[in-house]
């Protein structure tokens, strides 16, 4: 923020700051430079969000082709439908499990790989590499590996375990999708935790060692408390990502078997494109945005507390 208070060398001292021709020129140039960015952001982010909100209060009549204002009818329908209840429960439970798992695993990997190990860069890269794989490709790779005679079942057979149905079983499908998401995510989030670890002053550890603190004590009383901020960031960012999980459901399970993998994003998609009830789909988008807004607001609080 230094730029705001910086004294200007060339500025005419007699003119009031606000009206100097130079400042006016800057303002005009700024308007030109910012116009494309502001325009695309308004048209492609703000307008659709506002349109979702306004459309969520309307219903398109297939008979007359007219969009009627229906107030909160779409929301009432949504919250009254048992399908939506089950979608919401599935999505929330899924997130309650998958995100902490991703945070714990990526932190554990970060703690392991931030040490000075031979070839540490290589191990780190091998773990990071799945983050480069597009989400839809992650789904395709794992569905191939989870085939009845695929890689996972042969590995199970090797250690004497019976083959598993994975994506075709209603009790395993959601967990299988969780495995895919975690595989694609932990290496990515690990990097953020490593960055946080590097910020912890070495002197703290040295002092603790002199006081005779063991590995566990140093972890609990220095590392983890000082990692709170990066870990909170990772938790929230990866929750936003998991809330929007879509590709594996749409490509692999179509919400099944027995609705066991119908997550919120996929339900919005089916309401909009298969059921064709746009009003309800938009209401669902609004609910989704509200949920995410709560998460982001929570993120701000977590980040501020530390200061």
């Amino acid at each position, binding site marked *: *923020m230094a*730029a*705001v208070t*910086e004294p200007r*060398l*060339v500025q005419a001292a007699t003119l009031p700051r606000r009206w100097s021709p130079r*400042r006016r020129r*800057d303002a005009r*140039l*700024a308007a030109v*430079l*910012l116009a*494309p*960015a502001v325009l*695309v*952001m308004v048209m*492609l*982010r703000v*307008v*659709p969000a506002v349109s*979702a909100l306004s*459309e969520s209060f309307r219903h398109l009549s297939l008979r007359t082709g007219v969009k009627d204002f229906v107030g909160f009818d779409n929301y009432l329908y949504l919250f009254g439908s048992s399908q939506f209840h089950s979608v919401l429960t599935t999505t929330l439970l899924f997130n309650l499990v998958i995100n902490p798992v991703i945070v714990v695993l990526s932190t554990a*990997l970060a703690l*392991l790989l931030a040490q000075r*190990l031979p070839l*540490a860069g290589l191990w780190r*890269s*091998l*773990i990071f*590499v*799945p983050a480069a*794989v*597009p989400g*839809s*490709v992650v789904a395709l*790779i*794992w569905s191939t*590996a989870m085939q009845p005679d*695929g*890689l996972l079942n042969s590995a199970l*057979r090797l250690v004497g375990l019976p083959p598993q149905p994975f994506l075709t079983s209603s009790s395993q499908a959601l967990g299988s999708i969780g495995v895919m998401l975690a595989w694609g995510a*932990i*290496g990515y989030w690990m*990097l*953020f935790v490593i*960055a946080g670890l590097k910020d912890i002053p070495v002197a703290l550890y040295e002092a603790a*060692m002199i006081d005779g603190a063991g590995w566990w004590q140093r972890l609990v009383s220095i590392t983890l408390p000082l990692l709170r*901020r*990066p870990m909170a*960031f990772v938790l929230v*960012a990866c929750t936003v990502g998991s809330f929007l999980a879509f*590709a594996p459901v749409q*490509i692999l399970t179509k919400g099944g078997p027995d609705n066991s993998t119908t997550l919120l994003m996929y339900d*919005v*998609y089916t309401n*909009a494109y298969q059921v064709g009830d*746009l009003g309800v*789909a938009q209401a669902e*988008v609004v609910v989704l*945005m509200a949920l995410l807004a709560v998460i982001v607001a929570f993120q701000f609080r977590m980040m501020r507390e530390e200061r």
Partner: protein
Amino acid sequence: MRPSVLSRVSSLAAALVAAGLIFLPLWWVFASSLRPGNTFVEYLTPLSWTAFLPLGGSFTNYSVLLSGDFARALLNSFFVAGATVVLGLVIAVLAAYALAVLDFPGRGLVFAFVILVSMVPFDAIAIPLSGLFSTWRLSDTYAGLILPALANGFSIFVLRQFFLGVPRELLDAAEVDGLGRLGILIRIVLPLSKPALIGAALMLFLSQWQAYLWPLLIGTSPAKQLAPIALANLSSLYQVDLGQILAGSFVLSVVPMILLLFFQRQYTDSLSTTGLRG
């Protein structure tokens, strides 16, 4: 007080196991993609270490895949991601420069707007946006595929942070020497900002290359299909050739992988410095 040999050896072993387990599926994809059709399954029952050997393989899967619709989809993906990088960088550089260097009323407000908008996850509003795009007649066009990725507030944020770090004295000196505002941007700020530019470019590229929901919603005709969609469609065919799926998966993964391994430092720096320390 150096860590004992034992703890070092066990740490190394753990790192090896973790890296192996996480990387192995990807390696298996590569090895299996070199076996024609579904023959890779033969190496799995029972599982032998030869399943992970990319030896004696053939490029049949790749040649079949690349002679079909997938080739065009791949070119589309390159075109769309490339155009996004170029246009997205121009938009973001101009905006970031204004926010970092120029002094104008309402600057704080515009910056707050950029931050707020970059927090709206695109996928959440993709479905309402696709409705708007069909009324704007942008469905099934390249413009329709490229535009949404250009509204990347995060790349503006990353570049602004970096531009703020350019010493003010340098900019003032350039001004005294008679360089205009845009001259300063092109001659002084941009050459100094290569790492941030690479980071932002990668961010834009990956957002397009990895996208699935948006191209699914908008790119309906085969002529404008992107590679992830083409590959997913291939997998839902009645007669699935998994070898081709794995070959396509490898192609789609190896492109961002090479970029990331090559520019890892710039990418992760641009992410971690902004995401954590703000």
